[in-house]
């Protein structure tokens, strides 16, 4: 099954794309072939591709703002552990590829199979692809991202989650918390699969703080940004956290 074309434009087309993509995610869940991220090496790189639709100067500018905001957030995750020793300290090696001030990678994937193979073979924590859409009603731009990341089942299972980026400045924190939540959860799942128990709990704890921060924002801002696939991921995460809390209280 293939993703709908990334070149679709218009609000309704985008919504349709997200809905189809969410359904498609379920179909992609079957495990893929060989183990490719060697041994217990953690996944610590996030790769960003040039988004479709970011062709004219205005769209390019908005895309670069998005990259800076998301890029600094990922760098901040690494910075948060810079003074810490012990198991969690490996997270300081988290990198964004390319750095926010360098041109993004060209997106040449033909289909989802290619994306998934690349994710497995190159040992990335996340791959970020997306599109920028002009919204005529408000004369603004909207950025949507598909994040490809792992699952807690095993190191070769992957999933896709869609995150939107806002047209209003006030809604930027929700988007940043959403990206932060997804990244912390991706790191946590990988830590669990690579047998880093303390790091797993620490990263789940951080993911929890990011996830709960989404709920603090006005519902109107949340509704603009939260996609079905992200909400599904939150449900899975909440269950995992509940289990951890239950274990801690025993």
């Amino acid at each position: 099954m293939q993703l709908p074309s990334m070149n679709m434009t218009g609000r309704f087309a985008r919504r349709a794309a997200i809905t189809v993509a969410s359904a498609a995610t379920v179909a992609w869940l079957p495990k893929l072939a060989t183990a490719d991220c060697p041994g217990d090496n953690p996944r610590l790189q996030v790769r960003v591709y040039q988004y479709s639709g970011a062709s004219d100067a205005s769209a390019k500018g908005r895309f670069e703002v998005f990259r800076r905001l998301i890029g600094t957030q990922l760098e901040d995750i690494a910075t948060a552990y810079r003074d810490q020793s012990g198991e969690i300290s490996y997270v300081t090696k988290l990198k964004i590829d390319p750095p926010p001030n360098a041109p993004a990678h060209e997106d040449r994937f033909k289909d989802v199979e290619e994306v998934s193979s690349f994710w497995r073979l190159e040992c990335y924590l996340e791959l970020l692809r997306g599109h920028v859409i002009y919204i005529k009603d408000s004369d603004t731009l909207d950025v949507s991202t598909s994040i490809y990341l792992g699952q807690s089942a095993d190191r070769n299972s992957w999933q896709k989650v869609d995150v939107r980026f806002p047209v209003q400045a006030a809604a930027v924190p929700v988007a940043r918390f959403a990206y932060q939540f997804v990244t912390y959860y991706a790191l946590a799942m990988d830590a669990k699969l690579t047998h880093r128990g303390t790091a797993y709990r620490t990263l789940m704890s951080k993911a929890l703080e990011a996830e709960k921060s989404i709920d603090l924002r006005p519902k109107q801002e949340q509704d603009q940004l939260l996609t079905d696939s992200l909400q599904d991921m939150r449900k899975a995460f909440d269950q995992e956290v509940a289990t951890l809390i239950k274990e801690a209280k025993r």
Partner: protein
Amino acid sequence: MKRVLIVLLFFVLSPSLCFASDRDLLKFLVVPFDGPKPLATSVWTVVYLQIWRTLRKAPDPNPSKLSFGDGLVDWDEVQPAPITADAAIERARKNNAQLVLWGDVYPYQSALSPRRGVRDDALVQAQLLLPQSAEPRAAKPETWRVTLHTATGNDEIVEADIPQRAYSFDTVVIPQTVADLYSQPWFLTVYRSTSTREPIGAIGDTFWARRHLNEWTQVELPGRKVGWVRLPKLDSSSSDLVNFCAGVIRAFRGDWGGTVAKMKLISKSTTASWLLKIDSYLYQALAKEKQGASGQDEIAAALALNPLAARVAIYAIMSKLAQYQRDKTAHKTEAAEAVLKQLRQIIDRSQELFDRDDPWYSHVANVVGDLK
């Protein structure tokens, strides 16, 4: 290099900028924000002045005649560029600053509504670092220390550091209407008085705050010249970022009442992140314990928000240790025994949040094992 010195009610005795010693001084370095000029400079000026407005040398009223020493909000004029955490720490080290704030500014169009159109605002993405390496101060009031009398007859000390040393704040929106009022701090007009509004010059690059009065601040300039600066709309756009930085500064200066006041704004804020709320409760707990009261309500609030965070577990353990010692000192033997039981339970339950060989956890577990 331009530098601004802002010390509440601090009087300079000589023309040079003298302090007793860096060992007595808290320094907060605000690196100029990166972004398109002049917007980035204006936004940086707004945030800088907002933090400056929160400094105080003593509470008001001050029946206990407290003094929190000298505070300095400082900047260097090195080109901002997108700096890394390592570069920020290096700047903090060179400036002997305990806290360093830096950030990026993005012009951002806010779509108000189809009718009202689009407004250009500024988004600020700021980071705060409190590096352990840059620490010339002799006293560190923000360290939580509990001394315990163990069964072996020895005194054992357990210390806890501040909750975290790196923060990435939520993006803050600075309305263009506010940013436009502040081009650079040193361009602010100084007036003879708030009523006559007779200008007596620009503020320059060195000034001391004496007191704040609504949107006015009384300043002292070199040569003992005194005047007032007007800072309109500044407090109205104040943010969780500013309140949190102010709360941390106050904790670092041992201003515990002031810490609680600022951190309460965060815990009650409708916009602060979960992370900031948790840490605001922990700072409130620290402040209350430093004043001899129990911070357990605040720690319970932090635990309710995140029962999986090691930093919350550390503060929960510290609070119980302090309670145990208070009960012991007051010869409340039964109460102390009950607290000790709870303490052992918390230590057992939080074991998985720490590395197996975590030195802090191992030390606490050993010390508590020796208590009776």
